[in-house]
């Protein structure tokens, strides 16, 4: 059952859409944040942002930009989950975040079947990860300076610029001895500097063996968003349409900064899939489009709240499929919901366009 609220009072979706259109028609510097949704909703969000001159501030930005910044400046040597499972005899897991992902169970449960390492045992190493016993691995502690500094030290040992009988010297020897190594990490946790160093390490190791990076996707559909952003604007997602052309500027279009410095005057939070609610959402007139049944589907989440179908659960939608490393369609599990996030965003846009036409 769909639900909508305006200023805390329950109403129908049509009234909430009208109120949202009224809000964004008069906003001068609106922000579209979250962007944790299916491809159809993301496309509709771009369409609406273009009409109202909004900027886009994805929740996945820290992870996306940690990877993209390095990719655009130095390049990257990556592999796919399927190749890693099929070929790797050595897997290095960096940080804590990957240990919560199903992929780690997949790769720990299998042995290399293809390529140079076929038939050999698979060794899993952890750099700065949790010391749980669920997956058998060899753990190496992180340096006091954090992951990025630890990766730099490991790279210095692997290059032969540092020497000695230390834990990292041992880890470096293991990397060099691998037939097909894969380093698994979550870019947002490692950070841009650390990712660049890690990619440098991978390139260095390819002088002597085969080694690849496998950055895991953020859990907020950032990889779907980046593809929509690329085919829509030719740019990465933190883009603004205030001057009617897409401008890319991750600092300027950081929604939290815009709100903190009093620049934004309205916000749309798109989160038909679960994502953390911005803590600043209540500080300005805002619209929340959230998944039905979620904890945020209540009247006090934002000034205007519209509950919509959850992609892959109560409505169909195209989502990032981490296991396959591509976009795939996920059907509704049961009776499809009546309203989707994409339809709501298109309806808001249509109302604003109609208002503009009437005003001419």
């Amino acid at each position, binding site marked *: 059952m769909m639900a909508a609220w305006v200023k805390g009072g329950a109403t129908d979706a049509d009234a909430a859409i009208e109120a949202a259109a009224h809000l964004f028609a008069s906003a*001068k*510097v609106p922000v579209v944040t979250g962007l944790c949704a299916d491809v159809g909703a993301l496309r509709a969000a771009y369409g609406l942002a273009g009409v*109202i*001159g909004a900027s886009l501030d994805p929740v996945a930005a820290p992870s996306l*930009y940690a990877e*993209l*910044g390095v990719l*655009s*400046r130095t390049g990257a040597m990556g592999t796919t989950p399927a190749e890693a499972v099929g070929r790797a005899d050595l897997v290095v897991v960096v940080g804590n975040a990957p240990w919560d992902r199903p992929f780690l169970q997949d790769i720990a449960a299998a042995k290399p079947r293809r390529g140079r390492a076929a038939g050999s045992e698979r060794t899993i190493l952890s750099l700065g990860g949790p010391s749980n016993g669920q997956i058998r691995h060899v753990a190496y502690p992180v*340096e*006091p*300076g954090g992951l*990025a*500094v630890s*990766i*730099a*030290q490991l*790279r*210095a040992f692997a*290059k032969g*610029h*540092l020497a000695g009988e230390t834990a990292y010297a041992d880890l470096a020897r293991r990397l060099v001895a691998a037939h097909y190594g894969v380093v698994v990490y979550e870019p947002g946790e490692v950070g841009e*500097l650390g990712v*660049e*160093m890690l990619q*440098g*390490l991978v390139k260095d190791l390819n002088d002597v063996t085969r080694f690849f990076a496998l950055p895991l996707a953020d859990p907020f559909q950032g990889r779907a968003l980046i593809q929509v952003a690329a085919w829509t604007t030719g740019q*990465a997602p933190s883009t*603004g349409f*205030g*001057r009617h052309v897409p*401008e*890319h*500027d*991750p*600092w*300027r279009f950081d929604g939290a900064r815009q709100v903190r*410095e009093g*620049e934004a005057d309205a916000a749309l939070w798109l989160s038909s899939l679960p994502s953390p609610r911005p803590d600043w959402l209540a500080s300005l007139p805002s619209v929340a489009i959230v998944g039905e049944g979620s904890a945020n589907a209540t009247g006090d989440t934002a000034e205007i709240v519209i509950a919509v179908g959850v992609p892959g659960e109560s409505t169909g939608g195209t989502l990032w499929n981490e296991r396959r490393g591509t976009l795939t369609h996920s059907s509704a599990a049961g009776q499809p919901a009546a309203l989707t996030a994409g339809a709501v965003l298109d309806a808001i846009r249509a109302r604003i366009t109609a208002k503009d036409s009437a005003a001419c």
Partner: protein
Amino acid sequence: MSTLTLRQEPPERLDLLNINPLSLGGLSEAEAAKLPVGTSRRGLTLGDCFTIRLDGSDTLTIEGGSSRLDRVGASLDGGTIRVEGDVGQRLGAGMAGGTLTVTGSAGPYSGSGASGGTITIEGDAGDHAGGAVYSAKAGLDGATLVIRGRAGDHLGDRMRRGMLLVGEAGAYAGARMIAGTIAATRVGDHPGYGMRRGTILAGATGALSPTFVETGTHDLVFLRLLARSLRALSPAHADLAAGALKRYSGDLATLSKGELWVAAG
């Protein structure tokens, strides 16, 4: 001297990329007033925000700064701009020549990609001063950037050429440096992280990365030349270069051709 006087705090960020002595030189005040500077649907023009007085000279003064004035002096290749107050991000970005002075503080990415001229910030600078913007190959690229106050983190990130002189700087100063010189009375943790070449001179540092190794104290002609070149910009920094220094080599994770000079004792 031409003058732009900010009437009040602008309601949004303004982009002053196209506002410099050269671009204003051939315009009447009425024509200049129509130049777009807004970044939202408001469509603000220069005349909406500033009182304009032009005399065709190569000196422009902006009276009444704001942290919302972005790209002041960006792509400047001659003449002088003086801002009496604060500015926003990307001060002097891509600048090729001329003189740019800010009496207040600047936002992030000051001097990013600047290849010539002199930028002086008399107050503080935000993060990434002299650092590369997203996806850019290089930060400061030949210009001179002087920050009298304190700079944030990532000072001179991916700096390629030029001189960056600062009072104090935050963490990761000189990270991923390609070349060039940074002089600071103090830098934060992990200076020179991932640097390939270049020189960092610091009175004191935070935690050093384990990929920097001390190579002793040296009395090099280079240091005397560095002290001489710093003297005109800042006697305190010149004295630092002329004093006893410990040398660290790094970053050993990369080319290892960078050097970090830290005051001894």
